[in-house]
């Protein structure tokens, strides 16, 4: 490899030799391809090919039970625009996203800041806040389904006891409270992760910054807004991107806690992923579901590019 690098360093005087050099390099580095080959084969078989195949499927009426899979052109994409269920599911997904992410970011940062000063039993606190993260999502959903039980759930019992509500809430069975209930459960499950990432970010901020600000007479709130928050911007952006992609794919909680319900126009908790799942694996409309999946992909892609450009601009500034 040292040899290869030395060659690369030498200024490329002749363009003619380029191809020959590359071929030579490839021959020298055949073990690199050998090491890569299992990964590459799997990668192309299960990432690249499905991505292309999915696009192909989305132009067909592809029922897994029917032998005929007629080509329908853009019909699936056109249907999507008039599919009130799908449009409602976009709204529900946005509701979920806007409900969870700010709460998770704010609470994660808050707990991290509280823990970052010399706190006794840091390990114990960290474990307690992190426990929900290691709890399997299916289990977390089961626990909270019971917490939200109208007659015997913890939520209603303690809210009534402390006179915060006058009569039991229906939680998962009411169109108004079902989504907030799912959001709360998701925040509970996720905050520990945000806390740990923010703790790592906080500890990378040089202490001198705070000391200098303190000397200049900046109070704790000013120090928080002028030092902590801007210094954590890269961490926040990282968390924002991964939580956005995660939120758009929310599924398990919905499947277990509400099944997309409560029943009503579109179901108050039917998210995009749940809608795609039902189209593909309950109604077997694979072609339509593939088109829906591509729409989801496009939404995420636009958001990711926008995020990435924002991130780059921040990094340059």
């Amino acid at each position: 490899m040292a040899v290869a690098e030395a060659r690369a360093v030498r200024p490329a005087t002749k363009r003619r030799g380029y191809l020959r050099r590359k071929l030579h390099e490839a021959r020298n580095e055949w073990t690199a391809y050998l090491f890569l080959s299992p990964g590459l084969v799997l990668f192309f078989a299960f990432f690249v090919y499905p991505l292309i195949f999915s696009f192909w499927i989305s132009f067909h009426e592809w029922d897994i039970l029917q032998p005929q899979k007629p080509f329908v052109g853009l019909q699936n994409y056109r249907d999507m625009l008039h599919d009130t269920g799908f449009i409602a599911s976009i709204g529900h997904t946005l509701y979920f996203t806007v409900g969870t992410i700010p709460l998770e970011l704010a609470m994660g940062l808050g707990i991290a800041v509280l823990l970052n000063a010399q706190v006794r039993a840091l390990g114990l606190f960290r474990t307690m806040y992190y426990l929900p993260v290691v709890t399997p999502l299916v289990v977390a959903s089961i626990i909270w389904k019971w917490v939200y039980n109208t007659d015997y759930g913890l939520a209603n019992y303690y809210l009534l006891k402390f006179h915060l509500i006058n009569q039991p809430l229906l939680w998962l069975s009411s169109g108004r409270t079902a989504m907030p209930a799912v959001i709360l459960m998701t925040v509970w499950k996720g905050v520990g992760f945000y806390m740990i990432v923010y703790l790592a970010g906080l500890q990378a901020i040089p202490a001198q910054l705070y000391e200098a600000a303190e000397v200049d007479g900046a109070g704790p709130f000013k120090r928080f807004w002028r030092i902590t928050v801007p210094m954590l911007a890269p961490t926040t952006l990282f968390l924002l991107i991964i939580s956005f992609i995660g939120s758009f794919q929310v599924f398990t909680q919905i499947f277990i806690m509400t099944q997309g319900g409560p029943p009503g126009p579109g179901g108050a908790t039917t998210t995009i992923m749940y809608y795609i799942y039902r189209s593909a694996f309950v109604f077997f409309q694979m072609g339509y579901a593939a088109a829906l999946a591509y729409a989801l992909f496009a939404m995420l892609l636009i958001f990711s590019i926008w995020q990435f450009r924002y991130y780059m601009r921040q990094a340059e500034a």
Partner: protein
Amino acid sequence: MATSQTAQEIGHLSPGAAAPAIAVPRRRRRPKPGRGVRYAILIAGAIIFIAPFAYMVTSSLQPEGRMFQNPPQWIPTQPTLENFRTFLGISNIEAHTNSQANVGTATVLRWFFNSFFVSSTVTFGQLFFSSLAAYCFAKRTFPLRNFLFFLGLATMMVPGQVTIIPTYIIMKHIPLFGGNDIFGVGGHGWIDSYWVLIVPSLVSPFSIFLLRQYMRSIPDELIDAARVDGASEFKIYRKIVIPLSWPALAAVAIFTFQFFWEDFYGPLIYISSPSLTTVPLGLALFVVKNRTAWSVLMSGSVVATLPMIVVFLVFQRKFVQGISLQGLKG
């Protein structure tokens, strides 16, 4: 001493960047005011966070039916393991109505075996294939390297579930498996088998990326010296790269195992035989179809969570490191 060691390791984990010291609070000159408030908030928050979890544990230890009484009982008055016994004795949950095969042969223990088998196979596979690829991307120069690397990075943006519909169709048409002929027609292929849960998951661009970032910090001199001494590429990988990448490998192993232990979507779509049911799928079908046996369900939830908690407590430091490794590279 323990903390400074952690700090050292973390510093080692993030080459180049300012080394963050995990779990080492910055030294303050003087005690801060409002210390009591700080603890009050932290303790109140911790109680709220731990409460649903604690309720799961206490409910699992109480007689069936106690959950259907108010007020909620936090400390079991008549502790019993009956629910656990019932749960582990369940064979073939009624929920599996869509399968005709193997009725009555699968027990709950089988779910745990399936989950453990799939998670550990995928974890070992990913460690091996991803570390091989990561080493090439980190330390070798070869044509198409950057193209392939950025192709991998780009697909990390693609939500995994977008490819699940085509993958399902591909799996259904794997030739010569599950009653398929050589053209992949006639049977169900890899659907409803271990293959479908394991093979597509054996490589992950994310693991490769994480390992590659870490392996870049291995000094080139070490590798070149070994090469001069006539070590084969595989020997360099095995004797130098792998031992030096241990912290990153541990982080990837923990994340991968955890991810596949709790994976629900894959088994839900691909698996219909009771004998291939995994723990999350089994529990989910139980709750969706079997609406009354909540105490038994809670004991099942406890058993399903226990391995994750043990892994977390044993590898807590690695967990925390792994997450910061992930976060700071973003």
